[in-house]
């Protein structure tokens, strides 16, 4: 069976009609009774954690327990933008490390994740926007991240379909761009990590819901699961939660609360058309952003629903707002029809920064609180969580992002710089 993707193997496999390719990853139907590490959640973060545990730390007796199917939660429900245009040094270091891992990821995993660094433009609609953006771009440059201020002419050259008309409700005075940002292919990120982890011996178990925790003394000793309808227990030394959206539910089962509220974040796509958008564009004035997928769909995203939700649908009030914003900012897209609309449930914390590290239950570790921007952080979320699971010490990058910051007051308030006002 062929496992390595290359031009040579593609040609050679053609002789047998491509019938000898091995499945990308190995599905395990019967979990073992015990693992060194159990990772709850088979999304990008969980899969990346398993991959780096095996790859960087040699910890291979690892299981990923996924209640549904891998990559079917927020990993499959976002707008796939990767960027590191954050304001504060702690966040800049974290997210830029992630962008750098993304830049090498296709080669690292031998799986094309289609990371297209076409740039993200944040528009400026007022003098104040221009001032705020020069500060923002300068902060990025000070943190060693690429950022470039653009005048209106440059924005227009880059994205000519934007509304530069004389009666534009939100006149465009300029903006700034991070050129290394751009979309990647979300399924490929999940499957690439799954394939890499599986090849290193990690067990991927789907349709396996965690229903409780087994404790020995004060520490974790295992998890209770319902796998394909059958209840059982799986023992473990350590476990990790990578279940964005449902972090509070799992934390409740483990007996503690988190500083998280779950909200629905929605996105939508138009019918596919020929290339019309060049970059990713974000307008803070209307709170929406746009890009075009490789299939040709115009991808639109906007604000969170404004009430707590676990319903993966999204409120029509926001759908309407995003569509109206699209009509205003890109008048020539006004006659496109909406093809699909969906929502994911995101973990919102007060300071819009993640939590990567120990939980109140010894042996159980957290990867949560990514808010609306978890996809871009998949590689670094996995890298740093694997580090603390394997070594018992926080990774340097994750040190500022501990749960106890909500008790000490040392918040990293990225709300202003997270790209969009959520």
């Amino acid at each position, binding site marked *: 069976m062929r496992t390595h993707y290359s031009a040579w193997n593609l040609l050679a496999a053609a002789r047998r009609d491509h019938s000898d390719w091995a499945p990308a990853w190995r599905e395990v139907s019967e979990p073992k009774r015990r693992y060194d590490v159990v990772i709850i959640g088979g999304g990008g973060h969980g899969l990346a954690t398993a991959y780096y545990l095996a790859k960087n730390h040699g910890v291979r007796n690892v299981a990923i327990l996924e209640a549904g199917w891998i990559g079917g939660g927020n990993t499959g429900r976002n707008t796939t933008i990767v960027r590191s245009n954050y304001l504060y040094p702690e966040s800049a270091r974290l997210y830029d490390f992630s962008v750098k891992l993304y830049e090498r990821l296709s080669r690292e995993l031998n799986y094309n994740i289609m990371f297209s660094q076409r740039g993200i433009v944040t528009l400026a609609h007022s003098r104040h926007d221009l001032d705020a953006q020069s500060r923002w771009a300068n902060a990025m440059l000070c943190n060693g991240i690429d950022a470039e201020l653009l005048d209106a002419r440059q924005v227009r050259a880059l994205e000519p379909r934007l509304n530069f008309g004389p009666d534009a409700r939100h006149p465009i005075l300029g903006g700034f761009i991070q050129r290394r940002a751009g979309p990647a292919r979300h399924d490929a990120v999940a499957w690439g990590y799954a394939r890499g982890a599986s090849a290193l011996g990690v067990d991927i178990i789907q349709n396996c*819901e965690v229903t409780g925790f087994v404790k020995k003394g004060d520490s974790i000793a295992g998890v209770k699961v319902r796998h394909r309808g059958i209840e059982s227990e799986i023992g473990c030394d350590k476990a990790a939660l990578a279940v964005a959206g449902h972090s509070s539910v799992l934390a409740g089962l483990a007996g503690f609360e988190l500083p998280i509220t779950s909200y629905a974040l929605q996105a939508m796509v138009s019918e596919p058309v020929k290339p019309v958008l060049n970059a990713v564009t974000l307008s803070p004035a209307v709170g929406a952003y746009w890009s075009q997928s490789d299939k040709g769909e115009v991808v639109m995203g906007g604000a969170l629903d404004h009430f707590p939700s*676990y319903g993966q649908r999204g409120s029509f009030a926001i759908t309407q707002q995003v569509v109206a914003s699209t009509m205003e900012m890109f008048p020539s897209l006004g006659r496109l029809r909406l093809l699909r609309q969906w929502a994911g449930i995101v973990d919102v914390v007060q300071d819009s920064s993640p939590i990567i590290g120990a939980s109140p239950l010894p042996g159980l570790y957290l990867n949560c609180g990514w808010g609306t921007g978890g996809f871009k952080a998949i590689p670094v979320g996995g890298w740093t969580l694997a580090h603390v699971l394997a070594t018992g010490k926080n990774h340097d990058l994750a040190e500022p992002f501990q749960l106890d910051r909500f008790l000490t007051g040392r918040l990293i308030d990225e709300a202003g710089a997270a790209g969009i006002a959520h």
Partner: protein
Amino acid sequence: MMRLTCPWCGERPESEFNCGGTTAIQRPQLDCSDQEWGRYLFFRRNPKGEHAERWRHTYGCGMWFNLLRDTVTHEVHEVYGITEARPQKAETAEVVMP
């Protein structure tokens, strides 16, 4: 779009309201520990199922009131006054968390 019942104005679309989050959170004494204060400010149960929350009819009469709402189905089980206690009803038992 959800339709919510304002106690004063009656049934109105969701876009006229603002959600103020979990209702009836007790503020601890001001000389409490940092831990206790942090928990009061940030930590929430965030239930999947019935949630007691406060809303304001911002683009209407401006009144604050409480709701018991299911966070999965968005069904409203009860509307009650901002100073009233959470109604206890057998048939609105909490959805069992998975």
